[in-house]
């Protein structure tokens, strides 16, 4: 069982999504795999962008996958 779940980045880039109120939501889009799982697609808002946010999400997903594998 692969408990390491190394991350493999597939793509990163900015993404713009029109909102119902006429504004645009600008985000950074991350597509990656964790081990053999995925692809995972996570978007982090560019407004008050926090570089550590994607790392936290990746760790959450990785932890959850490890728990599932342990069952």
């Amino acid at each position, binding site marked *: 069982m692969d408990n390491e779940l190394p991350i493999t980045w597939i793509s990163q880039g900015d993404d713009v999504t029109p909102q119902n109120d006429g504004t645009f939501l600008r985000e950074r889009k991350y597509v990656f795999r964790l081990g053999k*799982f995925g*692809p*995972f*697609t*996570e978007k982090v808002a560019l407004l008050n962008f926090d570089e550590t946010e994607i790392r936290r999400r990746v760790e959450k*997903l990785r932890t*959850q*996958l490890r728990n*599932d594998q342990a069952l």
Partner: protein
Amino acid sequence: MTPFDPVALVAMLVAFYSPPSVPKLQQARAERPTYFAGGTLRGTSGEKLFLPDGRIFDLIFAVDGPVAQRRYQALDVTTATGDPDPFPLEPGPLDPLDEEAPIFPTPRTGEFTSLVAEELAGFGASDQQLELAGVAVAEFGGATALEASSAQLLGPAAEHHAAMRVALDLDDPAEELEAAGLTRGTIEAAVNEYADDPPPDIAEPEPGVTPPDEDDHGEGRGKPGDDHG
């Protein structure tokens, strides 16, 4: 479209949308649609994911039970539902692409060479005819006679034509006209005096008065009130 990975979907749901519930599932579907691979949430409680390829996944265990018993899952219930698809897809006119088939087949060089050889063989008779035509042109002996007749007929005609053009350029048209008596020193206003009587003046008709009809002679034309009786 992002391929569907049920393990990734469950990991995402547990990580970001706990505790499990149908509204949370719908929120996840709206905020992270790529994990759902274009599927839609339907079913009795909206906990089933219907994928475009026909697969059905139950995403919440014990959706109608207590919250403590609920948990996210990705249980393939495509065949367990037993409900036939009310709108089954019919086989279309197009076949799926064979990804193993080569897009560009390997060139067959031998065939091209043989094709060229066959076409060249077809021109064999044409080569002979072309050769005969070349010999016929080379054996034509009328060139000397043609040159002689050209020197005899066309040469003097060209010289005569050139001499005539030179003579015409030297001639002055005024001299020719004078010799013919067709020239005058001045242009006369009238060659002969105008002796005819001028035509009589015609009185101008007054506006608004109808001229009398010559054929009518004034008869039969009366005023509107001049009735006979």
